[in-house]
């Protein structure tokens, strides 16, 4: 019973995953065998995807779907590639066609569940997952829903695909705001166990050197699921998510950590984080959030500046108060050598969200590069006011003050920065500014300006 259910769910998930990740060589061999048929085009799209030629992959998948509008693999390939590239309207149409072609196909249902999550239609996503489950034999469904955790745990351990199915359900419930439901589900499937100190384990992994970033991330997630009172870990998880661009789930986690912590200073800190890093009272639409993360990768990883710029524009149309895309529009302008346009984008970002610390930080550093010392000083002073632990911002402010011959101001800022750097991260993180300051102390002001590194010091305050 277990294995039959497992087999069918696995088949659905595996087919869905394989659609995006079939091995290049196999795909190439198949292409050779199939010529230019729609099936060959689908294989070619997969091969292009595997080689990182995403635009080619999308275009080939489009050709496949146009050549064979009644082909389910072609429609799914087009939907998958369009979704991957952030072309959500196109993806939505392709999936709708796929579903009309095969309303009872579990692969299509799973892909639709994923896409619905991406655009924030959580209820639809859960319905599709439930529909997959409903295709299993009654006994298997009962087992999956009600068997005790000690039976569920080995089932998930044996089947990564089934585990992925459950983890997706948990993530969706968390994003939907049903944290209690997500925790119940995690306990029910033996993903977390009562009485285990996940938070301590996560902190040990964070400090240790043997764990990968993914391991640490997963450990904090388990703490958020398995230890409802571990305010710090829930908070770290939220901050991590924020860095990656998960504005919605990041906010929920930071809110939860702030709610749970009994320490007033931490509550204050949590409120500040939401205000200056997560947009305060202006939550970001899920669709805009997903597009933002995709646009970032298209720009940074793929070097696809045009595609990314178009997506950033769409994000700003969907969520004009979302500050982070403005920083990327500024970077794109800088890439074109247009410093003025970059500055305008950052100023628009500040108009959209006047308390966005990162936008102030970026504006301050841009003005510093342009040697507009007075404007830079104003922007960086605001940066530090919003987030006093911003090491890079403080080094930059110190430089602006130095450039304006406000050496006392420079001394104050650099001393604060160095004290903080030593306490948080050791002497190496601020070696160059410390050396410069030592010389300044000994010889007084010189012709060169102080260095302004921008080190990554605290989780949750990076990226963009």
């Amino acid at each position, binding site marked *: 019973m277990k294995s039959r259910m497992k087999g069918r769910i696995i088949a659905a998930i595996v087919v869905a995953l394989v659609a995006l990740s079939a091995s290049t060589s196999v795909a190439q061999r198949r292409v050779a065998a199939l010529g230019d048929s729609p099936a060959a085009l689908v294989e070619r799209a997969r091969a292009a995807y595997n080689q990182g030629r995403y635009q080619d992959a999308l275009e080939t998948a489009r050709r496949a779907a146009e050549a064979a509008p009644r082909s389910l693999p072609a429609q799914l390939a087009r939907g998958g590639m369009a979704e991957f590239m952030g072309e959500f309207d196109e993806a939505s149409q392709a999936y709708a066609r796929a579903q009309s072609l095969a309303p009872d196909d579990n692969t299509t249902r799973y892909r639709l569940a994923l*896409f619905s999550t991406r655009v924030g239609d959580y209820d639809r996503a859960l319905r599709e997952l439930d529909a997959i489950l409903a295709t299993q034999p009654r006994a298997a469904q009962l087992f999956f829903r009600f068997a005790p955790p000690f039976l569920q745990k080995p089932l998930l351990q044996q089947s990564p695909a089934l585990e992925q199915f459950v983890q997706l359900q948990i*993530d969706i419930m968390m994003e939907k705001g049903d944290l209690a439901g997500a925790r119940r589900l995690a306990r029910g499937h033996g993903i977390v166990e009562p009485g285990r100190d996940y938070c301590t384990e996560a902190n040990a992994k964070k400090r240790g050197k043997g764990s990968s*970033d993914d391991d640490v991330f997963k450990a904090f997630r388990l703490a958020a699921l398995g230890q409802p009172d571990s305010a710090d870990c829930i908070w770290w998880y939220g901050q991590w998510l924020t860095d*990656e661009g998960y504005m919605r789930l990041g906010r929920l986690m930071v809110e939860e950590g702030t709610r749970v912590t009994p320490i007033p200073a931490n509550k204050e800190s949590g409120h500040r984080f939401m205000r200056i890093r997560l947009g305060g009272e202006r939550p970001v639409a899920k669709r805009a959030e997903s597009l933002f*993360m995709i646009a970032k990768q298209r720009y940074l990883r793929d070097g696809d500046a045009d595609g990314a710029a178009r997506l950033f524009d769409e994000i700003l149309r969907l969520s004009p108060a979302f500050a982070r895309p403005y920083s990327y529009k500024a970077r794109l302008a800088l890439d074109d050598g247009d410093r003025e346009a970059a500055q305008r984008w950052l100023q628009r970002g500040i108009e959209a969200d006047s308390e966005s610390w990162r936008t102030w930080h970026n504006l301050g550093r841009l003005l510093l590069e342009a040697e507009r010392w007075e404007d830079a000083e104003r922007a960086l002073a605001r940066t530090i006011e919003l987030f006093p632990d911003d090491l890079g911002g403080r080094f930059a402010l110190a430089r602006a003050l130095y450039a304006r011959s406000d050496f006392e101001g420079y001394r104050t800022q650099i001393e604060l920065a160095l004290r903080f750097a030593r306490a948080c991260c050791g002497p190496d993180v601020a070696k160059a500014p410390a050396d410069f300051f030592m010389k300044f102390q000994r010889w007084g002001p010189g012709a060169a300006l102080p260095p302004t590194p921008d080190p990554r010091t605290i989780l949750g305050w990076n990226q963009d």
Partner: protein
Amino acid sequence: MARRAAARRGARVLVVLFLGGVLFISLLVFAAGVPVAQLRAGACGAVGSIVMLDRVLPACSGPARASRELAVGRAAANRRAYREALGHYREAAAAAPDLPAAHVARGETAQILGEYEEALAAFQRAAAIAPSPEANLRVGAAAERQGRVDVAIQTLENASGPWRQHAVSGARAAVVNFATCVPVNWSNPARLWQTCVTGSRDAYGASFDASRDIVPRGIFRLLVEEGRYDQALAFARERGWVRPDVEYCGRHSLPIDEETSALLAMLTQPERADCVLATAVDVADGGGARLARLMLLERVARSPQVETRQNAQWVLRYRLPDHDVPRLAEALNIAASRLQHVHDAADEALVVFQKSIDADPRFSWPYHNIGRVYMARGDFEQARVWLGRALAVNPDHWRALYSYGVANANLKRWRDALFAYRQALAISPNDARLHASVGWTLIELGHEPEAERELKLAVRLDPSLQAERSWLNSRYGADVRSGPTPSSAR
């Protein structure tokens, strides 16, 4: 009266003990086939360790000394001091020339150390004293390594073990099969019979056949490797391996391994023998440069598939020596690799690799392997020297190029490392680890944008590369496009 009765009882006990002893020794000698010399050495050694028997009984002097030397030799071998062990075994063989165990121990240790001449002589002596299939097997194997193929084939033809040896092997397989099958099927008697009993019978048959055919498979390989194809085919026919209905590159039930299947495919079905390519790579990975070369050359010449011909050519050029290596050089290189990896005796391995080079100075593998020994020791300067020699001998030696890059990177000679990695990458452009190595080296040289491209490519080719993924993630955040939620994107 009572004393006389006790004496009679005592005498009876002594007679019974004596007769029992005689019977036991006769059983050992005639039924179990233990040589008299070995019994004598054992007894002399055992008693000699308590009293100075050799002074009392001169005939016991040699066997007792041999027994002691064998024990000391075994202790030395356990300490991985193989050369010292060989010295003791030589002493043992000299002290008791009619003791087969001394010759066998001497031969085995000499073989480990690549002293094939000595090994062959010792095994031949042991076989002359106590002929047996095992003794012939040892002689055959040593002769093969020395390149004395006719002696090897002639001896191996008489090296198949007795029926009971194969039966034991078959019975062991049947028992394992039955023991693992019963707990799963005990509740269903029909299935128990069908699956477990029949399955165990099949396991017995397969294992019996496989055990019986081990030596013939070796002879067949030897004949093919020597290019005596007609003789090899005749031999295979005699064994019942050549059948028109069998697809040698597919599934079949003949009691032959993958390698023999591939060789038979090559000889009898050349148009459907592309499995030879993968087998040749395995053979080469096991050190069999000669046979692998022969198999690849055959595929280059006769495969109907262009892709197979090209792949075979690629392997031939970049993974194998650029010429036909003498059998002795190949055998010494294998012996040295075993010394390094199996016997954990790197110093001895260096000596034997050097002998392999002496046997064929154009053979680049032992140079590379010496480089790897030094790399394992952290002596990258020496490693670099030897890897450079490997590349001087064969500039197309892909693994040596890669290792040369690694050695240079460890010496922080970044430009040399990059040059080597790029050459290796030109040979194998889809190697994720090479792209990663190029990426890290470029970072050291301060060329980050180029490094990024290489690291991205590496991760795309092999998503399990953790350090490279972490580096990219630290710059761009995780690539969340592959899933809509934090977990699904990881």
